[in-house]
């Protein structure tokens, strides 16, 4: 069974009416994944014996028995979790991430773990120990990353929704590349307990789905305070579906010129068209400036890499994961396990981070980046004092070809310029499909102030209703 034209509601109807049983749905889902993944390689682990929870009541719980995909950097008790790295390729967790416990409690059916860039470092899902994932719109193109497996699985109709993680755009960029919706909630909205850390002050788990409403449904389940994560907010979580179907009249929309200037031609036109849709519906459009935009890339790469260099030190071959063979002494175990276990991009970031934190560099790089981060946050505060949302393109270009950009890290890093600010500022941000550019999807990014996912959903839902992008089928999935 494929989900190209399904939603949580449509599946629930089928389950409730008895048209299909939850067991059969799980089986069909796995069968379809196994079939279509020959094209996509979106999964690292598929649970062939995936079973729905017990005591399902489809009338009371519409999420009951709905299959869902999990990015492979979220730990699942008893299901291999690798972060797409050789160094963890045999790692079997003995506990569940908080989001997993919550999904299980809500009776979702977990069908497996999706491909990603190793340790979520990358924006193409080419940096995976398990091979590259392919874009369902064009199999020669990347699905983006790092949550490229989750994005391709959703866009390719393998599941209706998937969890991803976003440290610098890792949900929004692949969502944009695959023509789906993806939201990175406010930092502190979703527990990071059980998320394999990359940049701890930036990482956030979020949701990807074809339809905006399905992400709202899943976020309702996974959001909320957790004693295991002391950076979590204790604020009450609203029902995000209540922001859907609303009027956008009077919505104050900021459009930063730095973001619009980052793209041109057809892409700029397409984004402008979405803004015009809002304007026509009565939204107030304000052109604004985010003056520190040119500094976000270095700021982000120093902070994210510094945190990563420390977070990834635990992969040392001692307690779990890959341990190199033929080691003579302890230093050998460390150096060989890590050098053989990590891929090039991960090593590059560890090196950059260790450098930025090392004696003599700390003040100049880490501390200065932390200060510039403050200025970047202040840019946003100023705009949100007078606006409800910030709009712009999610990426500087649509999906690129597999193998095209890997060799030039600077170019790759600069591509993240539009998404990483939201992580630095901890604000919620989403990408919703704007349309096609030369046959490939292109995304509109929507940001709001901290804990105001409501306005993100409201705006995204309006765009979805207006451009009806969901009616399109990914061209790469046609036989």
């Amino acid at each position, binding site marked *: 069974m494929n989900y190209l034209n399904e939603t949580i509601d449509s599946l629930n109807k089928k389950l409730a009416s008895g048209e299909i049983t939850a067991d059969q749905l799980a089986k069909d889902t796995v069968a379809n994944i196994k079939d279509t993944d020959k094209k996509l390689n979106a999964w690292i682990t598929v649970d062939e014996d995936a079973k729905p929870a017990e005591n399902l009541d489809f009338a009371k719980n519409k999420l009951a028995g709905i299959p869902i995909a999990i990015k492979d950097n979220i730990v699942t008790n008893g299901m291999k979790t690798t972060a797409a790295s050789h160094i963890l390729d045999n*790692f079997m967790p003995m506990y569940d991430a908080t989001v997993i416990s919550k999904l299980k409690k809500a009776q979702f059916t977990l069908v497996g773990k999706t491909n990603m860039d190793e340790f979520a470092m990358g924006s193409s899902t080419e940096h995976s120990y398990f091979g590259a994932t392919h874009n369902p719109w064009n199999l020669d193109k990347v699905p983006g990353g790092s949550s490229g497996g989750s994005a391709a699985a959703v866009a390719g109709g393998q599941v209706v929704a998937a969890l991803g993680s976003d440290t610098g755009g890792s949900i929004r960029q692949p969502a944009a590349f695959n023509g789906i919706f993806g939201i990175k909630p406010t930092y502190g909205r979703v527990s*990071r307990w059980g998320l394999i*850390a990359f940049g701890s*002050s930036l990482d956030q788990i979020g949701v990807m789905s074809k339809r905006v409403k399905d992400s709202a449904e899943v976020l309702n389940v996974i959001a909320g305070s957790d004693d295991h994560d002391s950076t979590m907010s204790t604020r009450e979580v609203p029902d995000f579906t209540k922001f859907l179907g609303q009027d956008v009249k009077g919505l104050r929309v900021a459009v930063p010129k730095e973001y619009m200037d980052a793209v041109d031609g057809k892409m700029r036109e397409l984004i402008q068209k979405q803004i015009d849709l809002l304007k026509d519906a009565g939204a107030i459009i304000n052109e604004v400036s985010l003056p520190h935009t040119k500094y976000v890339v270095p700021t982000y790469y120093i902070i994210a890499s510094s945190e990563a260099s420390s977070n990834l030190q635990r992969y*040392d071959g001692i307690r779990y994961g890959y341990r190199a063979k033929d080691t003579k002494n302890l230093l050998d175990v460390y150096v060989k396990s890590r050098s053989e276990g990590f891929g090039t991009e991960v090593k590059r970031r560890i090196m950059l981070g260790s450098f930025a934190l090392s004696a003599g560099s700390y003040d100049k790089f*880490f501390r200065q980046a932390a200060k510039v981060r403050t200025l970047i946050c202040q840019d946003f505060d100023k705009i949100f004092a007078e606006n409800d949302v910030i709009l712009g393109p999610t990426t500087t270009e649509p999906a690129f070809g597999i193998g095209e950009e890997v060799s030039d890290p600077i170019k790759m890093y600069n591509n993240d310029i539009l998404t990483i600010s939201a992580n630095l500022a901890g604000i919620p941000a989403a990408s919703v499909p704007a349309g096609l550019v030369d046959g490939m999807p292109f995304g509109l990014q929507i940001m709001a102030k901290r804990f105001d996912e409501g306005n993100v959903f409201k705006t995204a839902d309006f765009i979805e209703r207006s451009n009806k992008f969901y009616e399109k089928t990914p061209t790469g999935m046609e036989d």
Partner: protein
Amino acid sequence: MNFKSTIGLEVHFELKTKSKIFSPSPVTYGAKPNTETNVIDWAMPGVLPMVNKNVYRLGIMVALATHAHILPTTHFDRKNYFYPDNPKAYQITQFFQPLARDGYIEVEVHGKKKRIGIHEMHIEEDAGKNTHGTNGFSYVDLNRQGVPLLEVVSEPDMEDPEEAYAYLEKLRKIVQFTGASDVKMEEGSMRVDTNISIRPAGQKELGTKVEMKNLNSFDHVRRSLAYEEKRQQQVLLSGGHVQLSTRRFDEATGKTVLERVKEGASDYRYFPEPDIAPDHISQEWIDEIAKELPKSPFDRYDDYVNKFGLKPYDANVLLQTKESSDFFDAAVAAGADPTMAANWMNTQVNGYLNDNRVSLADVKLTPEHLAAMIKLIKDGTISSKIAKKVFAETIANGTDPKKYVEDKGMVQLSDLSVLEPMVTKVVDDNPQSVEDFKNGKDRAIGYLVGQIMKQTRGKANPKVVNKLLNKELASR
């Protein structure tokens, strides 16, 4: 040439909590390897630290007891280094914004009082334990991983080994009496690192530092520092220079041995721990903790000597441990005469503990027992001799002294209507003693007391008997 020494001390205390600093794993000793651990202690992928409130509470107690300034906002930091007993390959500590700064303690050395500064103190996690095998392998046990530590860093204010020794003694006593730590060097709940440099008198800038880690006792601290002073002087006098290095104290030879030379500072890549939000320490909380803070050993000494009238020696013996001082205080609070309680504590109780190699916590004697027993002595119910028997029973089996005395019929005979006829009879029966008494031979009365004791099988109250005999003899 004259030299001046500059000594600084870094002291780690294990804080007495039930669970670890960043995980709820129990803190226990002697458990099987890796049984007191969980996913956090193992640094499994995806775990996050959860801060134990009690660690702050105990740390604040020590800060208060050493007059340190508690920072209103603290933050944890990561200290990065690889080692098998350090599972995250970083230690969570407080580097940039520690718990407290600028404390001090006062010591008395060579008859002079001196204030020694505390630069800062911070809370952090302990590492696991490695056991080195002889077969080319080491074995890692993570039970100790995450046990809370308080590190107290002194100012380099000490100028000779005696001052360092006095500082350690005083610091240990202060920390011990807060109840925050067991402060036992032999069990590792107190650990001392030292650093020392020397410079020619008159020279302003400090000499090159030598560090010594994991010293086993205060005596080793003193001896190793004294050795280093001499060694460094000889190096300088022979035209050499002291190397920035870590040395180890060799107990057998009394010398220090070079462990490794340091080239520049270690590169621990400290940065703020992003997984833990800042901690605001409110004045209200500090005030609350100050109220709970047990009385300091110095205030207790004052009470013992000036309020209770104990001899300074006895007061000091009681104050050797918080346990004995607490026990004594509780006995006094339960109504015991302070002087008698102190005597019993410092002789019988300590004697028992030493003979049996146990601590107060291990015996069944309670402060209430001790107070009850002292009351029985004081009101004449039992004699001191009987009391020793009662004590032996109570400390061994926890038997209530009053009940024991009653059950065993040990109550002292003080009844005049019984004793008076006995006294009259014994004097009648021993005219020779009357004669001796009249001739001023005191020994005579002793003999007569012995006769009465024999007849009453030791139960007669010797004081009463003495009094009656004196009266009776004088009347003859």
